[in-house]
């Protein structure tokens, strides 16, 4: 990860300068209280227009999915035989139209979004936890344990994950939490790799050495220098894991192997929409647009975070 290794020199200089300044002023901490690296990063993130806009859109989508179904007059699973396959219209409050059993597509899209986003969050959280634990352990232990643990990661990479995921949902079942488990099993390796690399290289960095030489207590080295450096990568990789996870859930659901009726998700809706797109194309286009916009936003936010947390690249 050359992106992150470049940081060392800057940080070393910064720590050394800080310490020197501190010694000169002789006042210790108070005199140095400048902008924190996090405030810097936040400012850089908001200056990146694509990332900032993406974050706003994403927040809007999440809020809509969370609150929307409560405010709209239709229920996501109530069929209305007098309103089958209606095109989108403002008159009857079916703003996205209805499906072939007369269920309101807007409400279904938002409820499906809840499920997709929830799978995204849960699987990402689980895989990030697993990846961080695995990577940090391997990095700290080093030697043979490290080699063995990383062999497992390589092995997981070599496997065509989607097919094994299909095998797993076939064998285990298609409950919501089983889908989450299946996706988690195949999405923790990136995080493990990155965290391991970061842990390994952090242990022997110049700025850590410099801090140690200046007599900074170990606790402050860990929380002041090591953890922030880990948190950056973790934040970036968590963000880029989410769209991948959502996509996997959608693929499984699209194939009819994920979330089951009457519950729905964006993948299920796109699957249903693709079946009837000749007569009601909106059934395909609205959920597809929602999914794509969400994926786009996550990608741009990931890029923005990466740039924001890497001072070298500006």
């Amino acid at each position, binding site marked *: 990860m050359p992106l992150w290794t470049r940081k060392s020199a800057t940080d070393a200089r910064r720590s050394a300068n800080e310490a020197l300044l501190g010694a000169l002023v002789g006042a210790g901490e108070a005199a140095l209280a400048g902008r924190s690296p996090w405030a810097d990063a936040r400012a850089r993130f908001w200056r990146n227009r694509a990332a900032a806009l993406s974050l706003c859109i994403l927040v809007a989508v999440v809020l809509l999915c969370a609150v929307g179904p409560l405010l709209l007059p239709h229920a996501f699973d109530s069929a209305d035989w007098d309103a089958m396959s209606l095109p989108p219209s403002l008159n009857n409050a079916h703003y996205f139209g209805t499906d072939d059993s007369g269920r309101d597509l807007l409400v279904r899209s938002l409820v499906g979004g809840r499920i997709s986003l929830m799978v995204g969050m849960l699987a990402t959280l689980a895989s990030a936890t697993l990846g961080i634990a695995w990577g940090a352990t391997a990095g700290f232990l080093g030697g043979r344990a490290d080699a063995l643990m990383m*062999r497992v990661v*390589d*092995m997981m990479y*070599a*496997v*065509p*994950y*989607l*097919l*094994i995921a*299909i*095998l*797993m*949902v*076939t*064998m*285990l079942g298609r409950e919501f939490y089983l889908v989450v488990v299946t996706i988690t099993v195949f999405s923790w390796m990136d995080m493990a790799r990155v965290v391991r690399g970061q842990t390994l290289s952090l242990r022997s960095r110049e700025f850590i050495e410099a801090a140690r030489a200046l007599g900074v207590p170990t606790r402050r080295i860990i929380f002041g220098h090591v953890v922030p450096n880990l948190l950056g990568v973790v934040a970036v990789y968590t963000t880029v894991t989410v*769209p991948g996870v959502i*996509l996997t859930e*959608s*693929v499984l659901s*699209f*194939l*009819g*192997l994920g979330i089951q009726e009457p519950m729905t998700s964006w*993948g299920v809706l*796109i*699957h249903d*929409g*693709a079946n009837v*797109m*000749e007569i009601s*194309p909106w059934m*395909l286009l609205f959920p*597809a647009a929602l*999914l*794509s916009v969400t*994926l*786009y936003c996550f*990608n741009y936010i990931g890029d923005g975070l990466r740039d924001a947390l890497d001072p070298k690249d500006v």
Partner: protein
Amino acid sequence: MGSYCLRRILATLPTLLVVVTVCYLMLHATPGGPFDDERKVSAVVLANLQAKYHLDQPMWKQYLYYLNNLLHGDLGASFRYADWSVNELVAKALPVSAAIGGGAIVLSLLIGVLLGSVAALRQNSAVDYLVMLMGNLGHAVPSFVIGPVLILVFAVWLRLLPAGGWDDFAPRYIVLPMALLVFINVATIGRVMRGSLIEVLHSNFIRTARAKGLPTRIIVLRHAMKPALLPVVSLIGPLAISSITSAVVTETVFSLPGLGKLIVNGAANRDYTLVLGLVVLVTVIAVGFNLLVDLAYAALDPKIRY
């Protein structure tokens, strides 16, 4: 080189063994047996059937039988399609997937390298924007959205091509699925090619070549291309694997009788042996591809020591 090859080949064996074992154990953990049917069979017939398929043996023995069959290239019998062995099903489906997947990889390598190179040489030109746009689209719009949209446009609205199906390798049925795969792959290849060629063109030996007064054509073709292509070579492995997995989606979207469709149908029908056999087969192909690409990479890149 010889010992490196041998070491790499040996290193793939544990991977394969672990995958086969884990999948086998999962298969065994599921309740129900192949003969728990609505159709009641008499106890004697059942015993005979179980003896025939070694189901009366302890599990480790069954596992060894399965491994032995695998080594002989026998993936077993299908649970659901009576009278069909997994091998026969695969023999029918594999050519379809291979034709579309293989064709798509070759085509997308050609197009991707070409577009990526032009984009790198003419930055901020129309081609450059096209490559970046495709890269973005291919990244965020999933294939199971692009596929139906292609059908909607070319089959439903323009009525140029069939919406799906298969007729013994007739080109009409191949165009759309292949176009979908090519689009997705070119998105990746083009971006990687563009990035790596730009990086190479900024390196010292290119500056030297320019200083010598070589024409741009020679610089690009003779000096810059080879190192710039290396990252693309390392992409072939993942691309091959992803075309196998995206075959699952394309073949569902376009209803093609390939491996992907087979596995999805197998999963929907809970045809355990079929799904297991296909997963094992695809894993072997994927691991083999990775191995080949690694070896090719080692042979091409002078910086790699083995």
